[in-house]
């Protein structure tokens, strides 16, 4: 791969000590020390208050809602993200570049703006909420609305992880399969999809991880009714406002652990797919 002639840690290049010191000090001050307060706080509390805080039915309901809606949104994004990535990579049409740039809108638009906009759109008098209401579908202030917001903010992840992989997919391989007698469906199911699985799974996991921690875009459309439409992020803030540091720590710790597990899974999938491609 990379040429091995490069002399690393060359005595000729200066500045290792000063940049490394700055990197470590800054990383510790901004990220690591603040983050360490969470496990440290949990350890200081001990198991009992943690378990008590976590077995609260309101906390459990918030986890069910947060993980459930996040999973549903990540599934929607997986399906439509694949379609969008396919259209953007394989088809040429006027305005393709604009559409491609627009995919990143959920990254660029502040979440609070997305939150109030979606709430107004899907509210009882909104452009989309009114016709849906007439069909008997209520979106705002229900778990459906939470899922809609999470679909919005998770959309770029699947598209952006699939696009480069799809662009690398050689049409020759498909043509070879077709020449050998495979039907279009066979080509998709047996050639294209297996090739896409690692990136697809990565995109799904990224969208899922982002959705679990999302706050700004959800908090307006959710309605925030305890036990019914209260997400875990909001519950942390509620506990904090009541000066219930132990409760906030407990709820946050579980979310932090889940995020880390997802991050490790994503890295593992990436490593696995890199090895697979290398073969």
């Amino acid at each position: 791969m990379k040429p091995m002639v490069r002399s690393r840690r060359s005595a000729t290049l200066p500045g290792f000590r000063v940049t490394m010191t700055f990197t470590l000090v800054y990383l510790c001050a901004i990220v690591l020390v603040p983050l360490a307060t969470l496990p440290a706080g949990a350890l200081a509390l001990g198991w009992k208050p943690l378990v008590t805080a976590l077995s609260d039915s309101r906390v459990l309901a918030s986890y069910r809602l947060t993980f459930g809606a996040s999973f549903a949104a990540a599934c929607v994004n997986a399906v439509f993200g694949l379609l969008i990535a396919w259209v953007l990579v394989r088809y040429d049409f006027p305005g393709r570049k604009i559409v491609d740039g627009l995919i990143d809108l959920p990254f660029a638009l502040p979440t609070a703006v997305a939150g109030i906009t979606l709430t107004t759109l899907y509210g009882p008098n909104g452009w989309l909420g009114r016709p849906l209401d007439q069909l008997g579908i209520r979106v705002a202030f229900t778990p459906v609305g939470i899922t809609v917001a999470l679909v919005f903010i998770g959309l770029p992840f699947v598209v952006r992880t699939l696009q480069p992989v799809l662009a690398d997919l050689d049409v020759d391989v498909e043509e070879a399969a077709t020449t050998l007698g495979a039907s279009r469906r066979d080509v998709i199911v047996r050639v294209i999809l297996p090739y896409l699985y690692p990136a697809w799974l990565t995109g799904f996991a990224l969208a899922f991880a982002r959705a679990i921690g999302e706050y700004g875009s959800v908090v307006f459309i959710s309605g925030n009714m305890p036990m019914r439409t209260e997400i875990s992020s909001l519950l942390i803030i509620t506990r904090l406002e009541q000066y219930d540091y132990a409760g906030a720590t407990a709820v946050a710790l579980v979310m932090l652990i889940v995020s880390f597990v997802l991050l490790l899974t994503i890295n593992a999938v990436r490593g696995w797919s890199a090895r697979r491609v290398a073969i």
Partner: protein
Amino acid sequence: MRVGGMSIVFAFLTVFLIVPLVAVFSEAFARGFDAFSSAIHDADARAAVRLTLITAALAVPANALFGIAAGWAIAKFEFPGKALLTTLIDLPFAVSPVVSGLVLVLLFGRRGWIGPWLSAHGLQIIFSVPGIVLATTFVSFPFVAREVIPMLEASGNAEEEAARVLGAGGLQTFFRVTLPNIKWGVLYGVILCNARAMGEFGAVSVVSGHIRGITNTLPLHVEVLYNEYHIQAAFAVASLLAGLAIITLILKAIVERRVHDRPRPIAERVPEPQLWASKSEA
């Protein structure tokens, strides 16, 4: 299949991206230009703009400097624990915004680990501007570093070593050789970092205390207006942030092209074989 797929994609993108974007501006001007103008010239709105600009002006350069320093240390030298360090830099992306705010409260809050000691010395972090800056710096931490590190790794050490052999000093080598190679990457990271810094809501919301005119950033001001049923005013302020998002997307698209077009080491300049010739019906 092609027409069907494209119709589904366009319908989905229209409902999920275009309609919301149009709605922000439509609501912002729902009561005419004067209402829009008075909402964004309101004293609290101006204070929010000022605080947002100050916060970004502190957080973005700090994170850019960090990204370049970390890139130099990680990409140009070999040391144990390199993979771990790279992972740790990405950590803030894995942490929920609300949890990012929470850990600052646990550390600096009135009942936090060092909050009482700091407030005894007259330093207030939480519910004041330093907390907002810290939270913003935390959430926008990795953007520049994650652009710069792979770029510096890909470019190798040869050019810098040549400059050194030819007698250039350390800083001279950096400013004349390294920085020109990575400037578009740095700019790309700065654009993303700035968008996040100006738009952050969750983490800042936890540490701000929502004091009007003092600790409200633009996104927090949007929230306050919306919750007080000043819907049009909320959207007027929100449209400023939406405008920022559109500018970000345009700049990003422009710089992205530069990042991809940057001169690469000669060994990589061999033309790549065309992977698939036609984009027609596949």
